[in-house]
């Protein structure tokens, strides 16, 4: 048990680590924005769309939630080229992450929308608002408020899950870690540093989400 930690070799690669960290952040933000868009659209279609559309959305949600993200990623990156769709690793990662988060977000948003009492919708309709205006002005904000905690957790899970993109050699934080490991053979140190970085990111996200909640839902 005489292992002696040596972080110096790992820290020597900090610029490289930083590059990976930046890509991890970029992937997270883009997938969050697109995933939320998919989620809101999906939930609206699932609840208010024509019956066949509802079935399609339900199938999408179940298919994604019951298969591993890694498999979904491989289908996009290694599967689609068979159809002539060749994507670089980063683009494929964004697509897979968005599709994945979109399914979870659809369920979260749906639950949030369903939490809004029918009476609120009736009050809006009775004032002459269109269905879309009722959704936009009466349902959306209270529903977002209800779903916010679940959505924020899902976003953080997604950020952590971006590490799978290293498997298709997208140069994210985890991928850089693997490379540093193979250069330095300091496995333990590298992964301790990477774990600490993911932890710091997750905590920063939590803080940011708490702040955003105040901005978005505070009065006046």
């Amino acid at each position, binding site marked *: 048990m005489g292992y002696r930690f040596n972080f110096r070799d790992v820290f020597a690669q900090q610029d490289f680590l930083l590059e990976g960290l930046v890509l991890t952040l970029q992937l997270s933000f883009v997938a969050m924005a697109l995933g939320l868009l998919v989620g809101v659209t999906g939930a609206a279609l699932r609840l208010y769309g024509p019956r066949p559309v509802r079935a399609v959305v339900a199938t999408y949600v179940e298919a994604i939630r019951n298969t591993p993200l890694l498999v979904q990623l491989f289908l996009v990156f290694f599967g689609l080229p068979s159809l002539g769709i060749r994507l670089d690793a980063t683009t494929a990662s964004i697509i897979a992450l968005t599709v994945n988060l979109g399914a979870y977000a659809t369920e979260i948003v749906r639950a949030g929308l369903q939490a809004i009492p029918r009476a609120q919708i009736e*009050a*809006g309709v*009775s004032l002459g608002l269109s269905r879309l205006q009722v959704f936009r002005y009466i349902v959306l904000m209270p529903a977002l*408020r209800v779903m916010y905690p679940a959505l924020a957790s899902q976003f953080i899970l997604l950020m952590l899950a971006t590490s799978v993109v290293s498997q298709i050699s997208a140069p994210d934080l985890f991928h850089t870690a693997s490379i540093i490991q193979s250069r330095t053979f300091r496995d333990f140190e590298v992964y301790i540093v990477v774990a600490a970085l993911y932890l710091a990111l997750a905590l920063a996200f939590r803080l940011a989400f708490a702040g955003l909640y105040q901005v978005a839902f505070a009065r006046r």
Partner: protein
Amino acid sequence: MSLVELSHVVKRFGTNTVLDDVSMTVAPGEIIAVIGRSGSGKSTMLRCINGLEPIQDGRILFDGAVVNDPQTDLRALRQRVGIVFQSYNLFPHLSVEKNITLAPRVVKNMSESEARELAREVLRKVGLEEKIGAYPDQLSGGQQQRVAIARSLAMRPQLMLFDEITSALDPELTGEVLKVLEAMAGDGMTMLLVTHEIGFAKRVASRVVFMHQGRIWEEGTAAETLSAPRTQELETFLSAVLH
């Protein structure tokens, strides 16, 4: 010409007939109190008039337009028919001002300053001008209900429907809401109100409609109908609510 006309209206929920061949008319300026037991179809009738509930048979006319015709522009119609609910249904995330100005702004494209002025005006009518910046959960039930009335008034409706609007309020708060209704009556607003406030109906309503088992069981002038019921059912109902 009548403002509202129901002829042989039938409304069913599944196999349950809630409105059974209901016919009545409302003339402009009339104030009609609709009374009756829970489940007698009063609220449903109100909700059919602004198209919130579809009907299975008969016809409902508002100002010449057939409410139950799929071709009718219900959005345009609802701008002219205000409805106030028992549970207020204010929008919890919006201030009193925004609750009131939302529909004028997005439905009628009113400018922000004009809408704010309108909000002040209707709040003055319900005696709550100082609450313009408050949020619904900062108001008492009676105040929330008065804001809900103001919100409806801001659309300048030709007809107001009130669905048991004081049933969730204690007597003191009920009084402040009824005072607002009385003032509106004085302004000549056409009103159809489902209520359990018999004393108020007697004082303010021009006509009383008693509903029983989905039918209009008895109707007439408020004074006559309430002091000298012609049917056993109305007599039983009145003695139950008055004691």
